[in-house]
């Protein structure tokens, strides 16, 4: 084994992540090569140094403030959107589906007692819309106990098509 070859493998060797065949060949080389032995020692020293570094924490106030700054509706909007779409949409780059409250337009929490007037459909692919409607109907993703009027879902359909983790609630 050459020094160049050995040195390329030294990190893996130091981490114990090499297959045994390599390990014995490296050990054979190291026993006769001081330069590679020194490289290994330095690598191990570096690992130890990095592993022992202490990092100051951000402080309690930071975490409390950071959590507070997360928009509350974000997760729900995303989950509701996925549950209602519930299907793979191929093709149309932008699909706007008017199916309920204008939730995604609202940065604040929506109020279910305040039905919104329907918002006009911006752009949509009619064929996709029909197909989506049929599948949502058949799938009945959520039990209904009330009524939701309209929502606008805008964006790249592919984002949601790739997301097959539906809200299972």
């Amino acid at each position, binding site marked *: 084994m050459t020094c160049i070859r050995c040195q390329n493998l030294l990190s893996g060797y130091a981490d114990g992540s090499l297959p045994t065949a390599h390990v014995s060949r490296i050990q054979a080389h190291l026993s006769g090569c001081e330069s590679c032995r020194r490289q290994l020692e*330095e690598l191990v020293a570096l690992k130890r140094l990095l592993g022992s570094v202490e990092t100051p924490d951000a402080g309690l106030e930071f975490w409390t403030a950071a959590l507070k700054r997360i928009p509350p509706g974000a*997760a729900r909007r995303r989950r509701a959107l996925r549950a209602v779409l519930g299907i793979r949409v191929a093709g149309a780059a932008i699909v706007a589906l008017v199916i309920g409250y204008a939730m995604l337009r609202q940065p604040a929490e929506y109020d279910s007692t305040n039905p919104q007037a329907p918002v006009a459909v911006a752009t949509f692919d009619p064929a996709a819309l029909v197909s989506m409607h049929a599948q949502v109907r058949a799938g009945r993703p959520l039990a209904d106990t009330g009524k939701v009027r309209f929502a606008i879902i805008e964006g790249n359909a592919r984002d949601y098509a790739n997301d097959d983790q539906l809200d299972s609630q």
Partner: protein
Amino acid sequence: MNSPDPAVLLDALPNVSLDRGKRTDSITSARFEALVRSNQTSIFRVAYRLTGDRDEAEDLVQEALIEAFEAFGKFRAGTHFDRWVFRIMRNTFVDSRRRRDKSKLDSLDAATNAVSGERRELGISPFSADTELMSRTLDGPIQDALDGLPAEFRMVVILTDIEGLSYEEVSNVVGRPIGTVRSRLHRGRMILKEKLGAYVRS
């Protein structure tokens, strides 16, 4: 086929209830918060070592938490929350650096790095065999050396040597094959070894 009238479709759509939303939300928020707090040390540590600057680290964590919450439905309970957030932070960091590099002049960048360096304490003790003593006083040089690495090398070194992840775990976080992780790790360490030479040579 004629374009269907949207109004007709709307009437035919099923009625869907989202009234349960609010209660579900507070449970979700509580779960999320609990996960953040129990993983806060490693989350901030990676952000700090990645950005090299405390303020930038806080911004990175903040952005990542917002994204994490929006994507929380994708997090599989029982898996490592902090590693899931590392992945988000890595993506956020790469994006923001790309944006910054586009709009920043070289000289401004250098000035920023200089300020970051000054902000870190650079109390360097005489060479000592005691690694723990060295590391406490070497935070400045160590972070400077990390800052000098390309971001992708820096990330795998942080995850392996500071966070103690295996190659496979690192591969999952950065989304690259193990061979790539191996190579970046080795090259990153070799560069660090040069920069930190005095502190690793026997």
